[in-house]
Each structure stands twice: as structure tokens, then as C-alpha cells.
């Protein structure tokens, strides 16, 4: 797979709305099997397409890729010390997360205006409730706000907002509470939606909501828990449990940097298992 094929693969994943990380070798100290500019794509499942060096780099890259997908931050990782040869490579790992999906409920002018603006900053926008939505904004202007909010709060969306005046918002919250919506769910509700900028016109309301959505997007706790990490009991490298090279011994899952380490462990587990660890 040539580096450019990796980019084609990355494009396919991006078009399909799949999260992945792009790993690019940015510096090399010889001897090393990778060259500057070598690339690989790492999927959310830990699969690797492309070449960024063999068993010295891959486990590290997979671990950092999964961590990057969890926290959304790019990182520069080094294989310094993890390789039997004296070489080392530095790899830039960039998470490529699909744009958040914003579901806008309602046919009101506020809903139309927000839909136009959100699409303008590259969010994916859908009209009506969607179970995959990251954020839901309800703006029916009194034609079904309560039903839509109850449904949204029952789902996994991290942001649920209601477009209404403060007074109306209060009434809606009271109605939801009376209908049995729990306090935990109500605490997630932004009501009225949007930063308090004193907006008057529809466009201003839309800007206030979008600003709140951007703030929410970058402040939120990672959607996926950081991948579980462990130490390869054979070579001592930190590896991800999702790396694929795992083996269960006496009820404990051990992860390995490569098939070689796993084979050595399988042949004689007692030699590597630290007693009392």
C-alpha cells in the first residue's frame, strides 16, 4: 500500500462518516524500516492500513490512535526505546472524527435559521429526531416541544436544547417534570438554548445557540472512554487491549505488541506472569 493509497482509504472512511486516525512518519533515525512520509490509517477498531514501521511502531501507533480518537487531540509519538534496533521514528497521529450530527426539530423560522448556520460550520444537520444525533435542538414554537424533548432526553445526545423564551422554557420544564422525566435528564437540558447574549433576531438566536454548541463540543468529556492499556509481559511495551494480540491466561487478559511476543507467552506463561501483580 503506497502512502497515497492510505489517503484514498482515509477519504473513503471520511465519506462514510467513520472515525479514524491518520498516522504519518515525520522523522526517522536509522536504522528503521519506515521512511519519512510513510502513512497508515488506524480505525476505531484498532485495524491498521498502511505502513509506519513494523512491530516496533504499530502497537504504539494503535494505542495512541485510539487515545486520540477518545480525546480528539493530535499527538506526536516516538518509538524511542521500544525497538530492538537502535533506530527510532517519530509519528504524527491525527484523529479524524466525523462532524457532529445536529438534529433540529420543528418547522419554525428559528429552526430554519439554525439549520442554515450549522451547515455553514460543517456540522451534519438533520431535520427531525435522529437516534444518532450528538446534539438536539427543539424549536417547534409550541407544537410538540415537550414530546420531542422527552424523546431526545431519553436518547444518547449529549446536548439537548429548547428554543423558547425564559418563561415558556420554565413551563416546558415543569411539564416534562410532571410527565415523569427525571432530574438527571432535565439537568442535561439547555433551556432556553444558547449563550445569553441578549439576542433578538432569529439570526442572533442561531448564533447564540451555535456558539453554545461549539463550546459544548470542545468542553465535553470524551465520548468514548480512553482505551484500556496494559504492559506487554514479554517485552515491557505499553500496549492497548484493543490491539488484537491478546491471550487469556487463568482469567486474565494479556496484550502483546506483536504475534511474536504472544507466541513466547503462550509457550510458557508462568515465566512472564509476575506473581501477585
Amino acid at each position, binding site marked *: 500500500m503506497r502512502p497515497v493509497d492510505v489517503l484514498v482509504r482515509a477519504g473513503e472512511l471520511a465519506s462514510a462518516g467513520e472515525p479514524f486516525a491518520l498516522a504519518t512518519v515525520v522523522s526517522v533515525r536509522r536504522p528503521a524500516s519506515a521512511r519519512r512520509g510513510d502513512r497508515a490509517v488506524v480505525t476505531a477498531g484498532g485495524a491498521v492500513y498502511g505502513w509506519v514501521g513494523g512491530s516496533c511502531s504499530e502497537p504504539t501507533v494503535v494505542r495512541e490512535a485510539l487515545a486520540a480518537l477518545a480525546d480528539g487531540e493530535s499527538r506526536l509519538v516516538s518509538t524511542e526505546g521500544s525497538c530492538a534496533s537502535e533506530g527510532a521514528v517519530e509519528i504524527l497521529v491525527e484523529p479524524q472524527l466525523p462532524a457532529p450530527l445536529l438534529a433540529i426539530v420543528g418547522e419554525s423560522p428559528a429552526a430554519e435559521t439554525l439549520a442554515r448556520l450549522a451547515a*455553514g460550520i460543517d456540522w451534519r444537520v438533520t431535520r427531525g429526531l435522529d437516534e444518532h444525533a450528538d446534539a438536539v435542538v427543539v424549536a417547534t414554537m409550541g407544537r410538540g416541544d415537550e414530546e420531542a424533548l422527552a424523546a431526545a432526553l431519553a436518547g444518547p445526545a449529549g446536548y439537548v436544547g429548547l428554543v423558547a423564551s425564559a418563561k415558556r422554557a420554565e413551563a416546558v420544564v415543569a411539564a416534562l417534570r410532571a410527565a415523569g422525566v427525571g432530574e438527571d435528564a432535565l439537568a442535561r437540558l439547555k433551556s432556553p438554548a444558547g*449563550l445569553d447574549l441578549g439576542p433578538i433576531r432569529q439570526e442572533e438566536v442561531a448564533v447564540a445557540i451555535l456558539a453554545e454548541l461549539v463550546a459544548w*463540543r470542545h468542553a465535553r468529556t470524551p465520548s468514548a472512554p480512553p482505551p484500556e492499556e496494559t504492559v506487554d509481559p514479554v517485552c515491557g511495551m505499553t500496549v492497548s487491549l484493543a490491539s488484537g494480540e491478546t491471550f487469556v491466561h487463568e482469567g486474565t487478559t494479556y496484550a502483546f505488541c506483536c504475534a511474536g511476543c504472544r507466541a513466547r507467552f503462550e509457550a510458557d506463561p508462568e515465566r512472564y506472569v509476575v506473581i501477585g501483580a
Partner: protein
Amino acid sequence: MKDVLDTLEGWNAEGLRFATATVVKTERSAPRAPGSVLAVSEKGEVAGSVTGGCVEPAVYGEAQDVLAGGPPRLVTYGIADEEAFEVGLPCGGTVHIFLGMAERDLIDELASAVRDERPVALATEISGTEIGKQRIVELNGHFEPAIDGDTFFLPFAPRPEMYVFGAVDHAGAMGRIGKFLGYRVTICDARARFATRERFPDVDEVVVQWPDEFLRGAPVDERTAICVLTHDHKFDVPLLKVALETPAGYIGAMGAKRTTESRNERLREEGVTDEQLARIHAPIGLRIGSRTPEEVAVAVAAEIVATRRKAAVPA
């Protein structure tokens, strides 16, 4: 009212008479702001809205009565809280709506003034002995609809100006959201290679000129937003000095804290006072964790909204 002017001109051309219902005042929050118009032609056609559907049937009835020769009138839909749901105003606000016959010549004149972006206002007597009289007046610094005595002033101001300096990626995003907020957007940069129509197809004007020189000759009023994205003292310092001499309602400048401090130092050396420096929003935009140019533009737009609505800027 701008949204229905085309339709009203069309009715005029057909020789139709029509009544207009105009929101002249709202209390607490209402779905549509003062100046919103619902028009009804003698054939029963409808254009625009005054509340987004809640009291339209009642207003339509009043308009029919006015079309049938009834007097002009001011009606109030006051929604007591407990009635809010019943009557249908989703927010429980109160709206005051004036109904009267529209004068044909006046509508045509208004439409042409709006097209040419001439600053005018429609003055309507909504109470007193002259009730129903309408005239077009000069826009004397009133940019928001207002009632003064018996008269309701509905301003038709030209779009406010947004000047974006620095032909960078952020400028394109800023221009798009600026247009969305109703600004006439100009991007200005001294470097001809960057300030091109191809890079910024969405904005109203792209100008190749030294920023301070351009701003010195550009129209600025208190609605004007000035966004300085050049990020280079060579341009920023003379430009901000000119900006601070204008009545611009918003002045924002890009640059991290340290850049801002060293730029302020340079401006002080040029004789700018601390009081003047306080007018500059720097670093530009609300702190919402923006990363992409589009998100930075949202942060700046939010700051502009907060500034023009005099809201306390959220931390």
C-alpha cells in the same frame, strides 16, 4: 416589513388594495419583533406574519374589517400567563399590532428606497387625531423600530457594514457569518495575491488597499463591525488607531495575550489612551474553545451579538 415589500409592490402593480398589520410593540418575549408585518389584499391573499401563526386568524379578521372600510386601529393581544397555551402564543408575551390601509405611492417609494439602500423610515400615526397617516421620513439615527408619542417609526436602514481586515481563511468564514447576520461585508488586505474574488466569492466587496488608508475613507457608524485579522503590527497598529477614531460599535483584533499586550504598547506610544484601548475586543471572539476558522467566526459573531445587544459577555 422588508420581507413583504416585493409582494406589496406586486399587489400595487395589479391594482389591488391592501391592509397591513404591523407589530409596533412587544412585551416580554414575542415570536416576532416590532416591525413585522402581515398584509392582506382585497382578494384575501396574505403575506408575512406577526406572530408566527398564533394570533394570525384574529388579525386576519381585523384586516378584513379595515379593508371593508373600518377605521385604522391599534389592537393588543395580551396573553395572561395561564392563558398562554389556550390562545396559542408559545411564549406568553404581549403584542401590540396596528392595522391600517397602505398607501400605494408610499409603498412604491419605500420599495425603491430599500432597493437603493437609502436610509429612510416609515412613520405611521398609530393614535391621536391623525391615526392611520403614513409618511416616509429621513432615518435620523434610529436603527430600531420605536414609538414616539403617537408615531411609530419603522426604520429601513441600509445593511450595517462589516470590515474584515486580513485576507486569511478566517476572513472567508467571518464574511459568511457576517452576511448571515445581515452585514454588508468588505474584506480588505494590502496584498493583492491574497485579497481576490476567487478566494472570497461570498462577500460583497474585496479591496486591495492598505487597511488604515481604506478605513479612513470608508463609511462607519455605530452599527459598524471592524474585525482585524491581519495579525501583523505593521498593519494592525495604524489600522486600530484609525478604528478607534470612528464610532464603530464593535472593534475586535486577533492575537494571543502577549501579541495584544505588545500591540497595546505600540498603540500607547502613538498616543492612544487606555480608555480607547478598552474598546478593542482582543483576543477577538468569545472563549468557546474554537479550533477551526469557522468556529472562530462563530465566536466573533457571538461577541458581536452580545456587544450590540449590550449583554454582559459570558465568561
